[in-house]
């Protein structure tokens, strides 16, 4: 029997059912059956996530229907959960899932072909319309994933739907997993995905890759979706948990995948570099009680050296392309400058201030200005930083955010103006929606008083 051991020499025989030999044995009782189901479910889920982007991309191409492709994929998963505990986990779980899903896709088409012939006989279709046989196209995979990414991030979709659809179709996450990551109800994500699929159909979004004229803009949209997914994980916008690293990891994987598929655009490598370096601080930026730890106070020994190295390599690839530095490349360069400093006091703030000046020109925004003020404050003294903040006082975007008062508080504290600083921190505490950030700001105000 495959997947069991021969006692002759005590060594394992090559297992056909490598994943879990227990699943090939006949269940002795209900507990064993449940264990088999769990093993089968775990193997199916792992195999699925390994291949899901390719499988779904292939299914979307042959069906040209995101909803149908998603249904076929779900059916294949269900079939696996029914068959694997009984028949054993197949030698190649992913290939098994792919072939079941493809077979069902082909069945669907046969059925719809029958249906089409029926309609034709009734004389209701236009003559001369070509219907290429979709079953011929089952094994062409190149560019499929990229097309799927562009589809999921299409500008006709609302921003939250783009993220949900990308996580579902490209990362292979379930509705429940996405809902957990975003701290919302399953039904909310389910509706978002359903609505997104419907919108793609209603708006007649073409499945083809965008043409060259449209490509750059669409790529920017894709990068923005990935960046937002990362940020959702990096700093939760609401709730008690300050970080949800799972979304960071998914975004990082998406970015790397995109860089492999769109390697000639510097900004994509810049995005990878930025996310790798930001993610390298994951362990260091949360204290023992879940409170945020500011960059300068982080234990740099806890930064993930591997991710920093990857980030710097990606930044190198971006710079080697010799394109005008866009916002992701500049932000990555800033992050890399922080990463190079062994101690906070070694930070090359002058370089960072110059990079923020560059960023303010290429991608001006009030948020960039606030960060530029921080950098100028460190590079040229707190009063220089406060000067950068002055034009922002009446900015409508910043009015509702804690960012401006918290940075002003920090600069005022450094400038030796503790009373004004404490007031600014309390203003900031009143504005933030994040509980642990509020505690940090109140503590800083109290320390000055």
């Amino acid at each position, binding site marked *: 029997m495959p997947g069991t051991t021969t006692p002759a020499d005590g060594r394992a025989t090559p*297992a056909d059912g490598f994943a879990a030999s227990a699943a090939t044995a006949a269940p002795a009782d209900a507990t064993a059956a449940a264990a088999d189901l769990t093993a089968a479910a775990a193997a199916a889920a792992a195999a699925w996530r390994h291949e899901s982007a390719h499988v779904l991309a292939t299914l979307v191409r042959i069906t040209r229907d995101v909803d149908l492709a998603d249904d076929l994929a779900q059916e294949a998963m269900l079939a696996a959960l029914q068959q694997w505990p009984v028949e054993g986990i197949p030698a190649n779980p*992913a290939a098994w899932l792919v072939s079941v899903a493809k077979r069902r896709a082909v069945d669907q088409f046969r059925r719809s072909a029958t249906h089409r012939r029926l309609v034709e006989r009734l004389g209701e279709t236009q003559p001369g319309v070509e219907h290429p046989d979709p079953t011929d196209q089952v094994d062409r995979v190149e560019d499929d994933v990229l097309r799927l990414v562009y589809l999921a991030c299409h500008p006709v979709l609302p921003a939250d739907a783009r993220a949900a659809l990308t996580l579902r179709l490209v990362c292979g996450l379930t509705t429940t997993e996405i809902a957990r990551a975003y701290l919302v109800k399953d039904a909310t994500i389910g509706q978002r995905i359903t609505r997104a699929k419907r919108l793609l159909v209603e708006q007649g979004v073409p499945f083809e890759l965008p043409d060259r004229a449209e490509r750059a803009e669409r790529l920017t949209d894709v990068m923005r979706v990935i960046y937002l997914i990362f940020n959702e994980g990096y700093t939760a916008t609401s709730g008690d948990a300050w970080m949800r690293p799972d979304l960071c990891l998914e975004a990082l994987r998406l970015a790397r*995948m995109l860089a492999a598929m769109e390697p000639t655009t510097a900004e994509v490598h810049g995005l990878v570099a930025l996310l790798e370096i930001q993610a390298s601080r994951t362990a260091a930026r949360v204290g023992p009680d879940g409170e945020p730890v500011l960059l300068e106070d982080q234990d740099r020994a806890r930064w993930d050296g591997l991710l920093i190295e990857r980030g710097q390599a990606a930044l190198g690839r971006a710079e080697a392309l010799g394109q005008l530095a866009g916002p992701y490349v500049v932000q990555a360069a800033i992050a890399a400058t922080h990463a190079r400093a062994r101690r906070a006091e070694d930070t090359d703030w002058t370089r960072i201030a110059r990079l923020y000046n560059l960023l303010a020109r290429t991608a001006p925004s009030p948020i960039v200005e606030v960060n530029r003020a921080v950098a100028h404050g460190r590079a040229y003294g707190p009063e220089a930083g406060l000067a950068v903040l002055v034009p922002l006082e009446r900015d409508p975007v910043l009015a509702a955010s804690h960012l401006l008062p918290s940075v002003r508080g920090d600069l005022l504290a450094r400038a030796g103006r503790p009373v004004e600083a404490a007031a600014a921190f309390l203003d900031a505490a009143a504005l933030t929606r994040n509980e642990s950030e509020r505690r940090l700001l109140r503590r800083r105000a109290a320390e000055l008083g």
Partner: protein
Amino acid sequence: MRFMVFIKFTEDVGDPPPELVDAMSKAIGGAFADGSMVLTGGLYPLSESTEIRVEQDGLTVVDGPYAEAKEVAGGFAIIDVRDPDEALESARQVAQLHRDHWPAWRGAIEVRRIAGHDDPG
């Protein structure tokens, strides 16, 4: 989370067939592209290895090969994946490639979690 994966086999197995080399390099290329592969490499035979042993009398330096070694690590990979199931699935795929492209090959793939940066707490 990160895992160290060892490929272990007896050293007298000979050279891998080109089909396996092709299939492995394709799989490894894909894993590097999606970021799940951190580092991979083959290891020179035990005859070129050295052990520094700490014993009662102090340190001794012993050159390989070692009499007791049967299956030894001949290659390794460091992978960065979402969870243990995914690590196992990666290892299983490597095992399956060996089985498909090198039917005479016998060996094992060991999957060890690397302690460190993502440990809870």
